[in-house]
């Protein structure tokens, strides 16, 4: 395992909910994170079609966004979601893995701003997108 893999693995396994939902980081660095969540029958919102529940996608978007804040060069020691607005574009195709790409594109002394997009295996047509504001706790002595 590379250092990044180790950090990514440690990050996910420290979040019980993210680990329980099978989320995995595929790339991380400089405020940008790519994270996946496999389709799972337990996360379905519409049993007639097998489409994932919006809340399951929201969980992935929120986790990826938080991870993007944590890997920003400002090197925060912790973060928490202040606000998240999610737009749902289309139903996620059943049995396909969802991939979220989150970017922490601006930080102030105490707030981080993130945008994130989710796709299924058709990466050209996003399933959902969100923008969020997160708290940013900087290391002591650097504020």
């Amino acid at each position: 395992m590379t250092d990044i893999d180790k950090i990514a693995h440690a990050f996910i396994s420290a979040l019980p909910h993210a680990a329980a939902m099978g989320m995995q980081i595929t790339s991380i660095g400089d405020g940008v994170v790519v994270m996946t969540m496999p389709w799972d029958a337990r996360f379905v919102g519409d049993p007639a079609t097998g489409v994932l529940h919006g809340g399951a996608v929201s969980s992935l978007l929120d986790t990826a966004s938080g991870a993007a804040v944590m890997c920003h060069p400002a090197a925060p020691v912790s973060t928490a979601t202040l606000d998240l607005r999610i737009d749902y574009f289309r139903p996620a195709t059943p049995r396909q893995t969802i991939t979220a790409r989150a970017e922490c594109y601006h930080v102030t002394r105490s707030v981080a701003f993130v945008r994130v997009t989710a796709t299924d295996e058709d990466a050209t047509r996003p399933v959902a997108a969100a923008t969020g504001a997160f708290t940013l706790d900087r290391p002591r002595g650097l504020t």
Partner: protein
Amino acid sequence: MTRAKPEPVQVIKHRRDAALKALTAGVPFIQYLGIQFDRRGDELTAILPFDPKLIGNPVLPALHGGVTASFLEVAAIIELAWSTLWEGMEQGQIDPAEIGTSPLHLPKTIDFTVDYLRSGLPRDAYARARVNRSGRRYASVHVEAWQDNRSRLFAQGTGHFLMPGE
């Protein structure tokens, strides 16, 4: 003229509870999170019993933001579907016995905004939703969630939904 004898209360309660159960029991994600609904007349309270798998930050510890968002969204969708169902049921247009037999047509989320007011504690959480506007095609729903004190919300949300059949 003699008035029709009112239905026995147990019959009415059973019908309403069965309709509510049909609405929620078939959704795997609601069962995965363990969300339950308490009904008082037409008023619903969503309940999220605490479970260690719902934790996002183990240091605090706090509920995962995604769990909070999911809980609010589930509460909003079920309230919206329930309020439509209730009207149809009271007017005799919907036969509650048929609700569980055909595929559910729940409202679809267009967008959902979550306002995280304080961290979710490792305790049970409650939510109530209010349908602010429900048209033929679109609906707007607000939802509030709390834990120990009803007046100290830990999160609130607003969402827009596409009504089924459109």
